[in-house]
């Protein structure tokens, strides 16, 4: 089942640390957000393969926005 990885805070995409096809363990960072001078990783909620990254570096995301899809 594909699962959406959502931003848990509002921030700017600082770094994309995974790409489509990467195999991630639960807790691995998918992207790193920057908010109020903090770098905050958005982690994979479970193990899986990254199907799609839905954001670009420098993009502002709101809490709850979909960051990526893992399968």
């Amino acid at each position: 089942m594909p699962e959406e990885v959502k931003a848990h805070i509002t921030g700017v995409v600082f770094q994309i640390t995974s790409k489509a096809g990467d195999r991630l363990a639960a807790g691995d960072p998918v992207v790193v957000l920057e908010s109020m001078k903090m770098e905050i990783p958005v982690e994979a909620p479970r193990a899986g393969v990254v199907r799609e990254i839905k954001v670009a570096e420098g993009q502002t995301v709101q809490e709850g926005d979909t960051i990526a899809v893992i399968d």
Partner: protein
Amino acid sequence: MLPSVLVANRGEIARRVIRGCRRLGVRAIAVYSEADAGWPHVAEADEAVLIGPAPARESYLDFERVLGAARKTGARAVHPGYGFLSENWRFAKACEEAGLVWIGPPWRVIQQMGDKVEARRRMREAGVPVVPGSEGALDSLEAAGAVGGRIGYPLMLKAAAGGGGIGMVRVADAAALPAAWASAQRRAQAAFGSGALFVERYVTEPRHVEVQVFGDTGGQVVHLHERECSIQRRHQKLIEESPAPALDPEVKAHLVEAAVRGARAVGYVNAGTMEFIVQGREAYFLEMNTRLQVEHPVTEEVTGLDLVEWQLRVASGEPLPLPQDKIAQRGAALECRIYAEDPAKNFMPSPGTVARLALPAGPGVRLETGVAEGVQVSVHYDPLLAKVVTRGDTREEAIARMRTALEGFVVEGVRTVIPFHQRVLASAAFRAGRVHTQMVEQGGFNA
């Protein structure tokens, strides 16, 4: 006196500096990003210049845009506040080269104190105690083992080229050293392009006590007493106070004397802070902040002095307004930083729009506020909304006033650390002055 000052900052510190300029009849010029057009510091300045879009790299951190605003407005001096460009020696040098007065120490001093290994060396030479450790960068595991044998465990491996806690590895005992050395070296190489490491004793549960110093261009240096800033999260302060509670008078005397000696040794001019870690009767130099501190109001409240006024006078070439024996510490003062962070979610940022803001007032209560109702608290900047400062004849009175003040501090639209402050102020440990820098992370004030 300087005729005009460009305030290269935003939020509460920009307002504080603008107010200080006003008092002395100095024209204050603000700069702002597109995100801050509606913020109070822009409206309060005599003149304000838009310097770019919201990301700090393209506005508040951009040398050319800030210097361009100074040129355009004919500013005579630059006040950097804290954060942003305040400890960037290249920017201080660029200001000097542009013919602007830098309201801070000479750029060479900022450069020296910004290099952790160099700062340690300079302080050790001046007879200021530093955390026991290696003399400089080490090139081998064997050398690190020898230092470990001399200073004891646990210890810390730190990147010589580093900072901000990156690449630091704690080593519990000698057996753990080889693996830790390899790991720290790899991280230092990746982050800073150099695997050079140095070794320091790991000080368990220390207090953070700092000394406010001031120097003038005539070579005088004084201290304005100490501040305790042990309540921290992620190595950032949340509560500060003066005097430091339950600090042995001999330890305090030793700290202020060492701070003045250290500042004098590097030719310090203007406002600066010597930070120490204290454990029992041992005190070690941590680092020097070559700028005005966020928590300077607690010093103002116990000394009755205006530190921004001192900064402007010293930058104008005047001598220090008072000699050491006229700088007294009276009563007690406390500061709580109001951050837009959620203490229930490990102090995660909480950006948003300030839908409602009600501020406390009353005897002994001072507010330094950057925000106003309706402003957007952006993801691009530090989450500090305001500082609540209270004073009293005693520490108990300052704490009581703070608890009342925080009850009257209402913010809607963003979450803040106010509930955390209320728990700290109510705790037996804090009220007894039994605090250390690792308390928050150990969960000492959890709900």
